[in-house]
């Protein structure tokens, strides 16, 4: 990443000959602001994180509070004319109950096997979907005839909730990881493929004209205009694909599996261990958030050229 210090850009505005006073650039605006405002803006810079953390903490405190209330007065708490009866632990376990269930899950060692199985399904299915989705998406976007040929299939499969194919996959691939990989793959690939296709087709007419004017061949046009232009679309597709892939893992394991986080949740649910179900839920959510976060970092790396938001 190469960036100019803001000072240079300011001098560029002068160099550009705007001899009438222009409105202050962001850097100037900061310099003009009084000292006290600088500290306030430092806090404002972290505002999203601070407010987000506070609301999440508050949420867990209230949730745990309901659990404490249940322990103290299981018959309910009179709030004026209303009687607030806390839900049972089976119905809504408190965060600390969930933590305990999670601890037990770690201690008996099952977690490693489950995470390994689910992780394998997710990783293989998703990576395969990403690679094939991008390649196929680029081809389908660039070659109109290929698009006409494949469009009926893409539309059919995209319109179908791929999870309904699970019974077939179980017949074809058994109840091991293979059927789940297939469902993850099919779940994720279309978001990636369709976005990539849209990215390639979304050519900036002005840039195409520039390329043609300099005598660019079709391949040069693809390599220098279509491909870089589709990167933001591909990244969006990859991000949407994460959700589909996680759904595939969990639902696939809920239906039929021997191991896996989803399978653990299915068993826990059937045996009324709601704390354990919640533990699984947080595990899945954590995986999804981690993947999304990684992808966001990747996006920043690939898009250093994008205008910086203020």
């Amino acid at each position, binding site marked *: 990443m190469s960036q100019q210090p803001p000072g240079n850009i300011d001098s560029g505005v002068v160099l550009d000959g705007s001899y009438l006073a222009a409105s202050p650039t962001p850097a100037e605006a900061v310099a003009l602001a009084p000292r006290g405002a600088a500290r306030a803006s430092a806090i404002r810079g972290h505002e999203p994180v601070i407010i987000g953390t506070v609301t999440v903490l508050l949420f867990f405190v209230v949730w745990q509070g309901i659990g404490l209330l249940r322990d103290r007065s299981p018959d309910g708490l009179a709030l004026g004319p209303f009687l607030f009866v806390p839900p049972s632990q089976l119905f809504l376990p408190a965060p600390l109950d969930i933590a305990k269930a999670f601890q037990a899950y770690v201690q008996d060692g099952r977690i490693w096997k489950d995470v390994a199985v689910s992780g394998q399904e997710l990783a293989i299915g998703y990576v395969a979907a990403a690679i094939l989705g991008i390649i196929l998406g680029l081809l389908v976007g660039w070659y109109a005839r290929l698009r006409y040929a494949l469009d009926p299939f893409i539309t059919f499969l995209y319109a179908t909730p791929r999870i309904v194919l699970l019974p077939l996959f179980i017949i074809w691939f058994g109840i091991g990881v293979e059927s789940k990989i297939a469902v993850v793959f099919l779940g994720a690939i279309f978001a990636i493929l369709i976005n990539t296709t849209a990215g390639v087709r979304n050519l900036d007419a002005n840039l195409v*004209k520039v390329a043609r*004017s*300099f005598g660019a061949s079709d391949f040069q046009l693809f390599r220098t205009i279509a491909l870089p232009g589709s*990167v933001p679309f591909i990244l969006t597709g990859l991000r949407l694909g994460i959700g589909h892939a996680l759904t595939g893992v969990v639902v696939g394991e809920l239906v039929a599996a021997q191991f896996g986080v989803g399978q653990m949740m299915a068993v826990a649910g059937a045996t009324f261990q709601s704390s354990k179900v919640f533990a699984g839920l947080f595990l899945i959510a954590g995986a999804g958030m981690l993947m999304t976060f990684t992808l966001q970092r990747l996006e920043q790396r690939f898009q250093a050229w994008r205008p910086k938001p203020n």
Partner: protein
Amino acid sequence: MSVAVKLEARRVAIKYRRQSTGLDLVAVDGVDLRIDDGEFVSIVGPSGCGKTTFLNAVDGLIAIESGALVLDGREIAAPGPDRAMVFQQPSLLPWRTVTGNVLYGLEMQHRGGEESRKTAARLIDLVGLEGFADSWPSELSGGMQQRVNLARALATDPELLLLDEPFAALDAQTRETMQQELLRIWGATRKTALFITHDITEAVYLADRVIVFTARPGRVKLDVRIDLPRPRDLRLKREARFIEYERTIWESIREEVLRTESRAQVA
């Protein structure tokens, strides 16, 4: 002193199909003009007179219907390294730095390499963007982006420089600065230049000759030699002889506009 003819247009007609109606429209019909080597020629005309269409044909982006377009004795059939266009919109590749954009044309013509990087660095300095070689287009102002657009065209070292209203989208002050800058840069390179604009003052200020197109279908209506000394200064725009040129051209365009308006009323 006899000067070689650079570009010659002989009875050029260009048709294009309107997407909305599917009907053919004659954009220009019977354009005759000659541009000498090293000359700076501006084309002005009422809006929709086909001047940009004509420029695109000279660049080789669109085919002509009849007549001949000849550059250095060869008929123009497709885009070539002997021409380069400065576009109305900066049209920079946002994912390439200033240097990457200036190199773009050379890369497309397989003329990259170490030498081209030196050329790019020299041109970035020439257009007044010292220190911005590694900046992204999104970090530049509109005027600076147009400087990159110009440097990109100059990088391929074309025989004929085509400029399609490159300053139309800029604010008035930046536009004047860029006009002056263009004259400075043109003075340093002395490329034959064909400049399209709808701004009469700009046309007179920049050019050795101003050509007025008729309303569509465009034809050469008036060809005015601008006998004003170079180097030119912005103060020139306030002088009587400058204003006299402007008035002549303005009258000519006004005639065309009135003619089309009366035609529209009859129809």
